[in-house]
């Protein structure tokens, strides 16, 4: 409420110096030292609280601590085993997982879990620090814009005489030539070195020159890009979806979740191995994508070659055996006939198992493959069919059936046709990805330019001397740095030579 008042005041222009509380305008002033004298009462208190918050968010020290805090929690996340996705939300899986790591962390297990250290990337800690870091980065970026703009468009030309004595790099030169000649020569040297110069004559000629004056914007772009990347990640998590367990047996067609009308069919899956080492050499899913019955894409999906269609992508993720099973009712009508991916492993015995459900029947069918000749219940050439009630999960019946032999179980006829393969795809739609890539581009280019391209600023002061000659002081600011020193020295040498002529130097 009070915030609205503040904005209205501003719009109406009734708050003379309270404008200092507005972020963009405040940035001209040193953070923390903002005048709030114009505002009184509750608004004033709020304003000063906001000012303090702004001062904190734009403080380099605070930003530094936030970055280090984020890094520290990230480090914990790399050193401590993290719960796999999906486990955290399932109390039973969670308890099982914790029991598994307990031998490793002993009595600390419960404490670490309470502190959310096993799910640190989803923890309140990292979220809070991340949010503060994002806020601080935004604040810093905004904070720097007006000053950067002013320095670029209206640089400070008159710096006062003491500057020329205290600047890290400074030099005084006297010449026998008139100030106008010296200025012309100096300007020419600066121009040749790609400096832009601004001069001001108030009896003494004041010179300002800079090179790559747009460079600070690259730093701002670099910081801004972090916000862009975070925004892209948020877009992805809000409007994207991911199915990393999308399985498809050879010959099967399946609708793509959340994409109405889109289906994908697996023509074949092939896994190949290097003959000498047995290491995998290739995983290829030959798939066809159809939209409303029309083929829209066909591709061999490999590990590094996803199929991209619009903003939906299909990645090769895993694969395994499948059993083609046909189910017919008493009248001989086919209820089901497809490859069943045997993507899970049974707890007792380690058999590969898969499941499907029958339309209109309260039954979930599990297909259990053999583990080999030693398997007591499922012989090679067989699969076991296990039926469970879909609603209660209670087992109904279990029976091993021979390949190619129709077998009746609970009024339906099941046939294990043959073995085949399934492919496991990771289906992802992430509308935030282009934003993230744009952010990454800005990040790399922004910081590369900011750190590789030198930004130089030089001030000069040129006065005439009683003897008709002139005296020129030049100074540069910047941390003491050998590159800056070298450039300054050679610039001074060049100006000397340009004024006095190379022959005499």
């Amino acid at each position: 409420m009070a915030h609205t008042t503040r904005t209205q005041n501003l719009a109406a222009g009734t708050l003379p110096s309270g404008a200092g509380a507005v972020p963009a305008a405040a940035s001209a002033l040193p953070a923390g030292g903002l005048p709030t004298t114009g505002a009184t009462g509750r608004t004033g208190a709020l304003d000063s609280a906001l000012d303090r918050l702004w001062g904190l968010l734009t403080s380099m020290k605070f930003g530094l601590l936030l970055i280090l805090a984020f890094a520290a929690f990230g480090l914990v996340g790399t050193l401590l085993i993290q719960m796999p996705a999906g486990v955290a939300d399932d109390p039973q899986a969670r308890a099982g997982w914790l029991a598994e790591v307990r031998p490793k962390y002993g009595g600390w297990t419960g404490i670490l879990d309470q502190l959310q250290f096993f799910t640190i990337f989803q923890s309140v800690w990292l979220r809070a620090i991340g949010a503060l870091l994002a806020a601080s980065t935004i604040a810093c970026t905004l904070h720097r814009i007006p000053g950067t703009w002013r320095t670029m468009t209206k640089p400070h030309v008159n710096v006062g005489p003491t500057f020329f004595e205290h600047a890290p790099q400074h030099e005084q030169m006297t010449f026998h030539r008139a100030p106008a000649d010296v200025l012309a020569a100096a300007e020419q040297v600066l121009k040749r070195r790609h400096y832009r110069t601004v001069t001001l004559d108030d009896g003494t000629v004041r010179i300002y020159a800079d090179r790559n004056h747009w460079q600070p914007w690259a730093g701002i772009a670099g910081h801004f890009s972090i916000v862009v990347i975070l925004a892209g990640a948020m877009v992805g998590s809000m409007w994207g979806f991911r199915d990393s367990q999308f399985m498809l047996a050879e010959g099967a067609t399946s609708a793509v979740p959340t994409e109405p009308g889109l289906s994908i069919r697996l023509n074949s899956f092939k896994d190949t191995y290097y003959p000498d080492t047995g290491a995998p050499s290739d995983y290829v899913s030959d798939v066809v994508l159809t939209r409303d019955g029309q083929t829209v894409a066909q591709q061999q999906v490999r590990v590094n070659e996803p199929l991209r269609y619009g903003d939906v992508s299909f990645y090769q993720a895993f694969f395994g055996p499948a059993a083609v099973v046909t189910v017919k009712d008493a009248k001989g009508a086919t209820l089901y006939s497809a490859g069943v991916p045997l993507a899970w492993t049974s707890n007792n015995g380690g058999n590969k198992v898969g499941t499907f459900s029958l339309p209109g029947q309260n039954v979930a069918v599990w297909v259990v493959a053999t583990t080999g000749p030693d398997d007591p219940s499922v012989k090679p050439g067989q699969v076991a069919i296990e039926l469970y009630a879909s609603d209660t999960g209670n087992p109904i019946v279990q029976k091993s059936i021979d390949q190619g032999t129709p077998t009746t179980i609970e009024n339906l006829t099941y046939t294990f046709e043959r073995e085949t393969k399934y492919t496991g795809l990771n289906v992802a739609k992430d509308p935030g990805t282009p934003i993230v890539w744009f952010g990454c581009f800005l990040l790399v280019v922004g910081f590369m330019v900011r750190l590789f391209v030198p930004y130089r600023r030089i001030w000069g002061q040129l006065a005439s001397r009683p003897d008709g000659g002139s005296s020129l002081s030049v100074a540069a600011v910047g941390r003491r740095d050998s590159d800056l020193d070298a450039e300054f020295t050679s610039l001074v040498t060049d100006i000397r030579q340009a004024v006095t002529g190379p022959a005499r130097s």
Partner: protein
Amino acid sequence: MGKLAEYAFVAGTLSTFLALVGYVFYALSGVRAARMAAAGVPMTTGGIGFTSGPRTASIGHYATLLGGLSVFAIAASLVLRTIATGHGPFSNMYEFSIAFAFGILCAYYWFERKYRQRVLGLLALPVALALLAYAATVPASIEPLVPALQNNMLLTVHVATAIVAYGSFTIAFAAALLYLIQPATGRWGLPKPAVLDEIGYRAIVIGFPFLTLTVVLGAVWADTAWGTYWSWDPKETASLVTWLIYGAYLHARVVRGWRGNKAALLLLVGFGATLLTYFGNLFFGGLHSYSGLAGV
């Protein structure tokens, strides 16, 4: 071709070792010279024999030559190996360790040319040598690429940018360590702290953007191979942590109370994080520890 690559590797390792011996003598003579100068012994040629000025310089000169030789030998080893395998040095720890050592040597010689502070070699070369020695202990056999790594162009650039970054970080580490062990006025004839501070900063100025590029390329690869540009995999996270620490360092240099010692300390911590990132996949055993497919 693979055999030749190994010969070049051995030659590079040997000359790195010899160069290191040279740098040790160079540094020792520097300490003695500093002590004698402090004791008022005149620093003339001849006279004090082994530690005199020109003699010191010439040991350093030989060390540099030997180091230059190892840069060439290791470059040759990497090129020959690339020809033999048909892909960049990214498929196992052997290849990547040699590449890392190469990055350190290149970074070191770039800085030696620019700043002429040979004492840095005393710290940078052992790191390179340790990596080469480590490479000698891991299997060097040429294995064909598993499917996840079949992205030659992207991964070669990814490794190239990583070694520029890691090489620079090693120099920053060396400079920071020398900075921290001496008082502001200098000691033992070591480079002046102000110079070391500048070298550390310059190294990060180069390394940070390259690490940024490395992480981004890693994300691009993850997006093509795994279908997600970021999954908080331990290796990814460790590289992000490293990136953040060096980002913090760049800020620390302009924050009052953080310049100097604390900033230098961040360089040591950052190098620790770099090593953790590098050796990470040996013990993280992450979600996809580069073995191929998660579900296979």
